[in-house]
């Protein structure tokens, strides 16, 4: 098991290294001069030259990469061209918002998705099964940026139940410590803010959870069905165990193995979907920040943000891999 983890860690390092090359090379994808792309066509020669010098664009490619990598290793992503603020600082401010949103979405997706999948599998071909599988098919096909807008129309504009956008109302004061608003509200015992923050979270996190929820429901169902037809389930029945124990102990434990993998893969969808969700709900997270960097042609920031999101993504995948191995005794005990 330890060797397995060491192996995974090593391959993570290799992948992150690869990502850094790819991210570094991206700037050279631009047709023409990156400096010109960033500053626009009317920039003065002097300004262009200055920027080139600052970004090291005049040096040979491998030197540039060397500089890029050594900065990366020191945890320095450079400065955002728009604000001249350190990119790491900007990211650090916004990352908690995205994490909070993603975790909430994942909680929705896993609880609702898995419950629907399990009930569907144990009552195959029931009305519940048909309904939930219909909804999960629709869910998988959902343009979430549209769903978000529809939810806003219904719940914010027509019914007025939930806030339109943002993380917290302007009228509510919250002292930020960790920038995870839920945690901050709890730490400062600010219950009014906690309620407000949760209220703001509902629509965006539900929107973001749609596709993962649907996928998790489908994989849970099929994986449970697969397990329920195994011989050891018949053994469990021959022991006189109740359906509850058979479904939730014997079947679910085995079905979890593929489900966990799929849940892990959903983080990618979440991180990608966060860009769309944050745009719709004006959620001040990393996705919106990255998109604004794209609009402003702030390639430094785009590189930094991409590097971070991709690294987060592969790290989560590695954790899922390890979890997968740990839950599966065939890998754990050998």
């Amino acid at each position: 098991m330890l060797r397995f983890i060491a192996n995974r860690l090593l391959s993570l390092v290799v992948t992150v290294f690869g990502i850094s090359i790819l991210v570094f090379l991206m700037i050279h994808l631009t047709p023409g001069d990156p400096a010109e792309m960033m500053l626009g066509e009317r920039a003065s020669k002097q300004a262009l030259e200055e920027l080139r010098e600052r970004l090291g664009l005049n040096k040979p490619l491998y030197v540039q990469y060397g500089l890029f990598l050594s900065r990366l290793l020191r945890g320095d992503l450079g400065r955002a061209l728009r604000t001249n603020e350190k990119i790491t600082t900007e990211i650090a401010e916004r990352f908690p918002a995205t994490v909070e949103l993603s975790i909430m979405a994942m909680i929705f997706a896993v609880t609702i998705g898995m419950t629907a999948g399990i009930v569907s599998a144990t009552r195959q071909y029931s009305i519940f099964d048909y309904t939930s599988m219909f909804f999960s098919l629709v869910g998988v096909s959902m343009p979430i940026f549209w769903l978000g807008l529809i939810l806003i129309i219904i719940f914010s504009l027509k019914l007025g139940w939930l806030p339109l956008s943002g993380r917290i109302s302007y009228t509510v004061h919250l002292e930020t410590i960790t920038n995870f608003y839920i945690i901050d509200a709890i730490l400062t015992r600010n219950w009014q803010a906690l309620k407000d923050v949760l209220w703001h979270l509902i629509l965006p996190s539900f929107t973001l959870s749609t596709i993962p929820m649907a996928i998790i429901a489908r994989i849970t169902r099929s994986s449970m069905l697969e397990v329920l037809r195994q011989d050891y389930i018949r053994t469990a029945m021959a022991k006189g165990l109740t359906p509850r124990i058979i479904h939730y102990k014997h079947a679910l434990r085995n079905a979890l193995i593929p489900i966990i993998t799929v849940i892990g893969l959903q983080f990618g969808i979440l991180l990608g979907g966060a860009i769309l969700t944050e745009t719709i709900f004006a959620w001040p997270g990393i996705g919106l920040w990255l998109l604004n960097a794209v609009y402003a042609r702030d390639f430094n920031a785009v590189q930094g943000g991409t590097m971070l999101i991709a690294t987060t993504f592969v790290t989560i995948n590695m954790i899922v891999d390890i979890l997968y191995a740990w839950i599966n005794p065939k890998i754990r005990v050998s």
Partner: protein
Amino acid sequence: MESNEQIILKVNNLHTYFFTERGVAKAVNGVSFYVRGGETLAIVGESGCGKSVTALSIMKLVPSPPGKIVDGEIIFDDVDIVKLSEKEMRQIRGNRIGMVFQEPMTALNPVFKIGDQIAEVLLHHRKASKQDVQNKVIELLRKVGIPSPESRINDYPHQMSGGMRQRVIIAMALACNPKLILADEPTTALDVTIQAQILELMKELQENTGTAFILITHDLGVVAEMAERVIVMYAGRIVEASAVKDLFHNPLHPYTVGLMESVPSWSDTSGKKRLKAIPGIVPSLLALPSGCVFHDRCSKVFDRCKLEEPPLLEHDNSRLVRCWLYK
């Protein structure tokens, strides 16, 4: 050697059908037999003859849908279990009737330790302290011949060989001292040497515990070794029932004769006698032939066989055979 023990299981006119898209498959079609305490009854037949479904019917584990017990009674300990609720049935499964399956490689749950899987039966059916259960599990494992059971209880199934796993499954079936164990092809998936060991173990356990066995197999060698009485099934029907030694001495039904001829004989070492296969294939249970279900494969077929199905006829007092030859 007739046992004087009481009859513990009596199956009367059992019909188990599968309602499939292509029609109704009569997997068990009017089967009656009984089992006495402490004896071994063998049910033999080719795959698809309904022997496994018979066992599953006794456990009421026929997958439903599409399967269903449509008629008949199964009297176990003076109670018709066909009429029992699912909840009452669970009191019997694993507790008073144990079951051993064909595939030891897949019959154990891969994510739980084998000790816990055995303990589960005990905890479920008996109220006992954790320590008592642990001791009992170790004792059971020792009983089924697993070396150093104290450490083996922490093994996962994939760490054991097929023979070892089958021993674990037997221990599981034995855990609550059941009156009856259904063993569905318990040795088919195992190597020949391991087969002999497992059979030996079962025999030994039966002598020590007085548990009755229903042994389901397609292997006449196993029958000869293990059972006192035997039932031959074909296409959902019993075609012959008798004491094992009578059957081997003088098989009555042409199908039984065919079965015996298709197995290498252990008395004939000359190698001159050629093996004979029964011509034709097992009929589809969806479209059984008219008359005797075996007539289109039978070497002794005559007109009556094609028109009328023979009843189970008594022969030589204690034997039953479903064939017009013995009318």
